[in-house]
């Protein structure tokens, strides 16, 4: 298939590290897609995460990892009436892996989607 031959140029698969792989497994094992979208696919209950590396991490790896660590540990926020994200009990290493996976996803070239930073 021509498409799968072309994709290495745009999906940047050379950046898939072991950490990115572990992050993808964590993404799946915790059913993140059950609330969030990733590049527009998934549930529509919680924010798009394909570009969250830019939205919440300003495209900086360390900033994003720090944000992720704080965010994941603060859940559930328990603001009355607000949609509630569960506590997934990930350790620091796992949160870093998940951050690396989301960074990888953000850096794939997906024909300039989404239209703006809000996803």
């Amino acid at each position, binding site marked *: 298939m021509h498409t799968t031959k072309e994709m290495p140029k745009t999906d940047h698969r050379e950046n898939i590290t072991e950490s990115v792989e572990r992050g993808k497994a964590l993404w799946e094992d915790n059913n993140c897609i059950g609330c969030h979208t990733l590049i527009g696919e998934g549930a529509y209950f919680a924010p798009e995460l394909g570009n969250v590396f830019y939205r919440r991490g300003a495209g900086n790896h360390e900033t994003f990892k720090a944000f992720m660590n704080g965010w994941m540990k603060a859940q559930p926020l328990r603001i009355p009436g607000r949609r509630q994200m569960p506590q997934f009990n990930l350790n620091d290493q796992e949160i870093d892996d998940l951050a690396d996976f989301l960074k990888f996803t953000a850096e794939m070239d*997906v024909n300039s989607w989404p*239209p703006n930073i809000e996803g």
Partner: protein
Amino acid sequence: MNTLKFQSQSVAKPYFIFALMLFTGQILFGLVMGLQYVVGDFLGDAIPFNVARMVHTNLLIVWLLFGFMGAAYYLVPEEAETELYSPKLAIALFWIFAAAGTLTILGYLLVPYSTLAHMTGNDILPTMGREFLEQPTITKIGIVVVCLGFLFNLGMTILKGRKTVINLVLITGLIGLAVFFLFSFYNPANIALDKLFWWFVVHLWVEGVWELIMGAILAFILIKVTGVDREVIEKWLYVIIAMALITGILGTGHHFYWLSTPEYWQWIGSIFSALEPLPFFAMVLYAFNMVNRRRREHPNKAATLWALGTAVMAFLGAGVWGFLHTLAPVNFYTHGTQITAAHGHMAFYGAYVMIVLTIISYAMPKLRGIGESSSPKAQVVEMWGFWLMTIAMVFITLFLTGAGILQVWLQRMPESAEALGFMATQDKLAIFYWLREAAGVVFMIGLLTYLANFLVDRKKVAVTSGMPDTSGLQTDT
């Protein structure tokens, strides 16, 4: 009263009954999620949204599979003019599938998903945690085994009997369903490839082979209720499935717009998926044409209503609402918004829920030993169920479309600095979500009304199943 042409058709009955039970569960969880959209922390600890959604969508898929299987066990022997190859295998597979499905749903509800993944050995062959394919790997293997047994049973029946176009289209669709499901076992570390092949299951099911299944069931019902010549119906069926496959297969391109895939997919996807409404429009013309040219007045008015309804609603939901957001320049803004949810709801209801309810409506009176149709009174109740559910679904779709348009306007259209964030936008959509939930309650009332139609004739069933000539029937098991 023995109303089945072939005794083995009776194996369809438990499939239909179990399908309707799961359908009820699906709607219940839909109401929970609908409420969580506006009261965010409702049951937040007991049933987090992701769990409710997984149960809602997986119940839908599984009950439609039960419905398709029941439909096949019912119509294949009648078309082939021979008994089913092995009724015992069909019943055994029913229990295996029902047990596996129930255990999977209980697993979703009772343990955290990551624990379920760990317990079922997802590390060994990771297939879980992808939308609609959340089932533990072992459940997926179970689905493959059940499908193989089911296809073997039907295949042997078709081989020894009459080969009709309807049977061949149906078995082709069912084989395609099993084959494309195999892509669910392919889960590469590269998320772009993962997504690309994930669509081989999801898209090629609902916009490909499932349309063959729908076409075959609809053709069978139209022959039965209208008495129009088989040759005429078959010609329409050929045209419809040819259009469905040509537009549906290349229409897969509309999922490859934003996926690290070459830009030519924006052209291929837009052009071919813009043509995807055609087979559904043909189905509307065909259903109404056949009913207008009917050569008999079938006493089962409700089944005819479902057959016409499924054609119309599939055209609106899959055809019109699909077209609304399928062109690449439009999809750039609407991708992954409530517009997608609106389309998903009406398309699934119109095309697949309604076709299964069509064959259940036609077959159930015979399976229950009542006769050609249930009593006029029961049919009136059933038709109330039809209208309540269908109108409720129209409103669910309209409210979600309203929410989606506003979401695109607030969150997607403005430049980054001006655009409203996701959660802030969701707050602005609350009125649409409340109205959707109200329409959802009406849908549930419609479903309960529909189910009540089976109670109207229960005395008839009790009387007829006690008669000597039904002693060989399995219909009351």
